[in-house]
């Protein structure tokens, strides 16, 4: 199995997978504590619409998915902040809009549906050198945003206290949404549209079961995301399973083990 490490495509997939895991592992505790898992799903479907538009125009889908998803993320946040509608309502609207647009584009892009499958479930083979570069750049940006961990966590615990302390909470909401959107689109190649939201939810959920502090939760989430990607990708190679599905199954397995360990006691 280790000879797999010699194949450039697998090296690329592994590296891209680990970088994506770094991004999603970092974001996941915020997604879990801010109850944004539905946002992950909504953005995944926005990415789908972007991909479909790219396929329809016969251009690289990534360059359509990225701005479209980013825009939808900001729009959802805007609607939530401005209209007093709850976040899940705002997401529900954009979710439906995205799927409808995606369906229209795909219908018009007939003949390219095979490519669409790759985007729906993710594919190791799909990761090219330019994708790797994009993910690497995003990880650097993620590192630049690390100082926001403290204020973001503060507002996650108690928005009013953070506001009273003049943390720019609303601006940070937009930054987080934008960051989630970009991370998610970058993950699509490896994980696929259908499962990409799991990346943003399961590592944080598992970490939540085991951690006593938010710092512990963040570190655990990172470790779990990295470990699942490693395990999942080797599993995928070994059994010839779709890569995204393998990683998510691995994540779910760890979640199940954590659940057993805490004995459903609700402790922690």
């Amino acid at each position: 199995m280790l000879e797999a490490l010699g194949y450039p495509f697998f090296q690329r997939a592994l590296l891209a997978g680990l970088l994506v895991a770094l991004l999603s592992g970092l974001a996941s505790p915020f997604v879990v504590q801010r109850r944004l898992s539905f946002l992950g799903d909504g953005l995944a479907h926005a990415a789908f619409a972007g991909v479909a538009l790219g396929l329809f125009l016969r251009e690289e889908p990534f360059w359509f998915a990225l701005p479209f998803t980013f825009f939808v993320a900001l729009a959802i946040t805007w609607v939530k902040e401005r209209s007093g509608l709850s976040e899940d309502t705002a997401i529900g609207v954009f979710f439906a809009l995205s799927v409808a647009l995606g369906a229209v584009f795909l219908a018009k892009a007939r003949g390219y549906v095979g490519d669409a499958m790759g985007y729906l479930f993710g594919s190791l083979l799909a990761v090219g050198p330019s994708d790797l570069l994009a993910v690497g750049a995003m990880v650097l940006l993620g590192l630049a945003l690390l100082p926001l961990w403290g204020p973001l966590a503060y507002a996650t615990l108690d928005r009013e206290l953070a506001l009273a302390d003049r943390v720019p909470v609303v601006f940070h909401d937009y930054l987080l949404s934008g960051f989630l959107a970009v991370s998610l689109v970058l993950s699509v190649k490896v994980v696929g549209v259908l499962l990409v939201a799991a990346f943003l939810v399961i590592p944080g959920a598992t970490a939540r079961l085991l951690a006593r502090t938010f710092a512990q939760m963040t570190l655990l989430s990172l470790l779990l995301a990295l470990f699942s990607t490693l395990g999942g990708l080797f599993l995928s190679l070994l059994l010839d399973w779709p890569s995204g599905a393998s990683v998510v199954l691995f994540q779910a397995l760890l979640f199940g083990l954590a659940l057993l360990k805490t004995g459903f006691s609700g402790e922690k």
Partner: protein
Amino acid sequence: MTALEVRRLSVRFGEFRALEEVQFSVPEGAFVAIVGPNGAGKSTLLKAVLGLVPYQGEVLVYGLPAGKADPFWFGYVPQIKTFDRSFPALALELVVTGLRRRWPFRLSPKEKEAALAALAQVGASELAYRPLGRLSGGQLQRVYLARALIRRPRILLLDEPATGVDRVGEEDLYRYLEAYQKASGATVLMITHDWEAAHHATHVLVLNRRVVGFGPPERALSEECLRQAFGHVGHAHGLFVEGGRA
């Protein structure tokens, strides 16, 4: 010196007027008890001072517009603890946010020491390493108070801090506040339904959307004032219509 100057402060939520033309001024070192019926706008007043609700009028803190004042000047204990109970946090960490204005990734030994001292100050040492989401109402009050005190604020804004605290704890609470005030010369604004406590204040603000009375307890807590503030509770609708026409 004037610690807090409120001039013609009005707050609206849509069409609803929560506060109208509220005006008063608090000298440094005063202990102000704010009393009034439910829905009188007491919590809203503190939130306006902190910039948590949009308002018309002026709020000056030591001569500066409240929005320009150093956030570390304010120690706030909110009435409703809106925090996420599922957030994995220790009481000690919340106290440290009083020093940092951000969530701590790890605590420096100095911060830990300061936070433990602040918790000890409010008789809550044993809560330091307990999960925040598991604390009772009264325990939370103490932890939030420790968080407010640790930054050594110039102005303490306390929204019904005794609610949920047991009888002994309540007496403790007033003793801590008095001790802190004596040591620091800070100004305290405390919303309370305990008229006994209000009688011990230097000033009492009787509020019912407008200032009904402001002054030393014996004057502000006069029967006339209280009847005006609380007597109208049954006619809140009438009041609202009157406000709507004004």
